[in-house]
């Protein structure tokens, strides 16, 4: 069964791939019935959220034996050979030469204790018989093709002597060394800054076009896949649920999950909050019926029985019992409340303000991270603090919170001076200003149950309650963040990322705060979960007239959430405007750069593609 619409035969074709892992009691099926084709010069995007099995499926299709893997069935044909049936010795000749793999973390591509050039040389030597001088020439060619030519003393350097973006391009070079025909990219840009990401993606586009590579690109970022790929396959609970041309899958989805995923992506050109998807995905393949039925708004009793197959529906293939019907899925935008209207661009008096903050790390000879920064937030207002890593936004937030006393500058709260150190502040000030951390798991004591953590906070801020009263209050707070009281007995390790972040918010609410400081609270969450946290914050702000400072590197999130946006770069504020104004009329060049790097998350890019990427890829790239 072919799923693609291309006339030429595919270079690489995986059919009916199933992978199971060894479990404590029995085997766990994590990938089932995965089928895809890769064609020369085209990129297939493999989309899905954490745990859906996309990395596993891709790696398994190369014949690689994953640690802990119990069984693997199916076929993966390359040049008529089934990689899953080949001997290890023959597979080795194919890996690196015909098929290449680019890992996710830049640090995961090279051994940290050996020089990079040696490792590149080895990768080349494994497949070609050339004199050392010729090998060096080939390597330099590969480096030039990823824009890494002319770095001084590159042959003497170890991995830690390159930046993340450079390492990722070196990883690309390593993959390209033997001119492979198939390349698998495993989320290589996830840990990079948006601007660096743009460059690396353009590089990838160029390489695929020039080398006529058949590429598979794995990512959880659906908007990115729409911008980069020709076709997209969406995975859920170990199965492909929709497969087709990128534009069709994202603008006219036929599967409720695809539609929900698209609806959950925040965009820079739409002011409505992305829609959340309630519930959690299963962590293994579901045996009977549709895996998504439990969360599907269009589910019927027949969805839970029998096996659901991939069937054609319009321009795509979809795994849905109701594939033939019109479910009205193709209008993802505008489904949730618009944010409280930013017509109030009126400058109200700030309830919390920071003036001329200077902060550094590492004592006297340390790095200066903030260079005289001033910021303020009023009640019933959400201010977004945006910037790339190293811009100082998190440091500023921690300084305001009292965890990182600044070297210079003043803080004020409700008109009175606010001591820079948390220990010196009044109990009221401590209570009314609450900080929520990015890593929800790290913010909860792993040895305390959720209930215990909640009760600690409640006892601290509401000392007068009885034991029963505290427990009731805990339940009440958890309800406000849409968590059932059952989590009270759970330990943080037993909860999902989204649930942990909600617990953190509930704990912050226990204090009845006036100011909420959010430090990249959604950055490590899947997009469907992120949408839920964002609407929660928006709702809380409305109900309680909160003043919120929201730190993030993701501009798209900001569009639907914030009233005002402050852009930081390299320790200073470079722009500060009401949201709509900033997006339609950015003033500083760095803001424009950031907007361009984020422009793939827009309704426009979904509809007609990411023009910025095409331009960058075609016109050549800086090193």
């Amino acid at each position, binding site marked *: 069964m072919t799923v693609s619409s291309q006339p030429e035969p595919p270079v690489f074709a995986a059919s009916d791939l199933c992978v199971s892992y060894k479990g404590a009691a029995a085997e766990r099926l994590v990938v089932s019935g995965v089928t895809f084709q890769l064609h020369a010069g085209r990129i297939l995007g493999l989309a899905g959220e954490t745990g859906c099995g996309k990395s596993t499926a891709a790696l398994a299709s190369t014949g690689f034996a994953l640690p802990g893997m119990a069984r693997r069935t199916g076929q993966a044909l390359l040049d008529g050979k089934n990689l899953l049936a080949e001997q290890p010795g023959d597979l080795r000749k194919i890996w690196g030469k015909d098929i290449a793999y680019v890992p996710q973390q830049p640090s995961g591509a090279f051994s940290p204790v050996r020089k990079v050039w040696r490792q590149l040389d080895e990768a080349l030597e494994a497949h070609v018989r050339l004199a050392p001088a010729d090998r060096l020439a080939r390597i330099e060619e590969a480096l030039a093709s990823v824009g890494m030519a002319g770095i001084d003393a590159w042959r003497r350097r170890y991995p830690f002597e390159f930046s993340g973006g450079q390492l990722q391009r070196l990883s690309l070079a390593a993959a390209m060394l033997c001119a492979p025909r198939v390349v698998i990219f495993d989320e290589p840009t996830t840990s990079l800054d948006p601007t660096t990401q743009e460059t690396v993606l353009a590089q990838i586009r160029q390489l695929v076009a020039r080398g006529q590579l058949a590429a598979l690109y794995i990512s959880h970022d659906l908007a990115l896949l729409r911008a980069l790929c020709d076709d997209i396959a969406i995975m859920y609970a170990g199965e492909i649920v929709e497969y087709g041309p990128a534009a069709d899958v994202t603008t006219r989805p036929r599967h409720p999950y695809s539609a929900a995923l698209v609806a959950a992506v925040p965009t820079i050109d739409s002011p409505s909050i992305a829609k959340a998807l309630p519930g959690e995905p299963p962590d293994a393949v579901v045996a009977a019926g549709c895996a998504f039925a439990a969360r599907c708004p269009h589910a019927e009793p027949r969805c839970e029985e029998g096996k659901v197959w991939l069937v054609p529906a319009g321009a795509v293939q979809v795994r849905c019992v109701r594939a033939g019907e019109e479910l009205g899925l193709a209008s993802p935008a505008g489904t949730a409340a618009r944010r409280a209207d930013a017509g109030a661009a009126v400058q109200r008096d700030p309830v919390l303000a920071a003036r001329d903050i200077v902060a550094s790390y590492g004592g006297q000879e340390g790095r200066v991270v903030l260079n005289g920064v001033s910021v303020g937030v009023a009640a019933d207002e959400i201010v977004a603090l945006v910037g790339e890593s190293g811009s100082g936004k998190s440091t500023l937030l921690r300084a305001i919170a009292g965890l990182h006393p600044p070297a210079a500058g003043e803080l004020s709260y409700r008109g009175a001076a606010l001591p820079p150190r948390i*220990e010196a502040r009044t109990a009221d000030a401590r209570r009314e200003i609450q900080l929520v951390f990015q890593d929800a798991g790290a913010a909860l004591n792993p*040895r305390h149950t959720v209930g215990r953590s909640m009760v*600690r*906070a409640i006892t601290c801020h509401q000392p007068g309650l009885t034991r029963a009263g505290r427990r009731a209050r805990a339940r009440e707070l958890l309800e406000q963040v849409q968590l059932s009281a059952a989590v009270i007995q759970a330990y943080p390790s037993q909860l999902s990322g989204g649930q942990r972040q909600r617990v953190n918010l509930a704990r912050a609410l226990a204090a009845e705060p006036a100011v909420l400081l959010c430090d990249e609270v959604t950055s490590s969450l899947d997009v469907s979960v992120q949408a839920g946290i964002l609407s929660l914050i928006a709702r809380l702000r409305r109900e309680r007239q909160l003043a919120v400072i929201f730190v993030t590197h993701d501009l798209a999130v900001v569009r639907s959430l914030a009233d005002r946006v402050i852009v930081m770069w390299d320790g200073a504020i470079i722009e500060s405007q009401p949201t709509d104004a900033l997006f339609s009329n950015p003033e500083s060049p760095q803001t424009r750069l950031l907007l361009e790097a984020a422009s793939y998350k827009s309704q426009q890019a979904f509809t007609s593609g990411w023009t910025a990427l095409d331009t960058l890829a075609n016109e050549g790239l800086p090193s």
Partner: protein
Amino acid sequence: MVPPLLRRVLSYREGRFGFALLIVIAFIVIGGPFIAPDSPFATTGIPLSGPSLAHLLGTDELGRDVLSRVLAGGRDVVLLPVAGILGAFLLGGVTGLISGYGGGWPDRVYTAVVNVALSVPALLVVLILVGVGKDSPAVIVTAIALVYAPGIARIVRGAAQAAGRSEYVDVARLRGEGVTSIAVREVLPNVAGTVAVQLALSCTQAVLLLATLDFLGVGAQPPSPSWGLMIADGEQIVVLQPLTLVGPAVALMLLALAFNLLSGALQRAVAERQR
């Protein structure tokens, strides 16, 4: 906090085995002298005779019942080292917790001191202390406490420092909680697992160290029924009456095995709990 950990340890085969062995050893150590047929010092039998009904493991070169001596010898072998380790914990564990969590320059000084103390070879220090102070229990316990305290201090300090840097401690600080409250409520539960593992490991080492001292003739002196000493004596007459050697050797090995298995199971339990 303890029962779930114990339950987890017992869920592993090695944990169950080790625990069972430990019960047996504890029985021998504590109840041994009471159930022994003879006094460990009484020469009731013909010297160097083999196993018989009156003397299940035979007699040694002075006619003393081997079984009774093995049953009596456990006390010396186990109690003193365990007491020493508890002392090491009080000394190293408490200071390590405070220093690791507190940080700052006192912590740097503390770390330097601990590192120097660790560089001094343990056995040599114990040998000189016990060699000069002879086998007074006070000296032995103090020697063991001093020698193992730095290792424990380093590990506890590391765990306390890691816990102290984590965000949930920041959350507590933001609530205005004091240093003691945070150390006890937030940091200690996260350090307890590591401490338990270290306790088990150190006890194993200390017991074996003391047995070694006895064997070398530096610790317990005759006619003490210490197992190490018995093995040293038994070595001389092994051809004539091997049980004088094998008896205490097996007992010692079972003890060490019990501690080893338990520490291993404990280590695994703590590691899995963190996930």
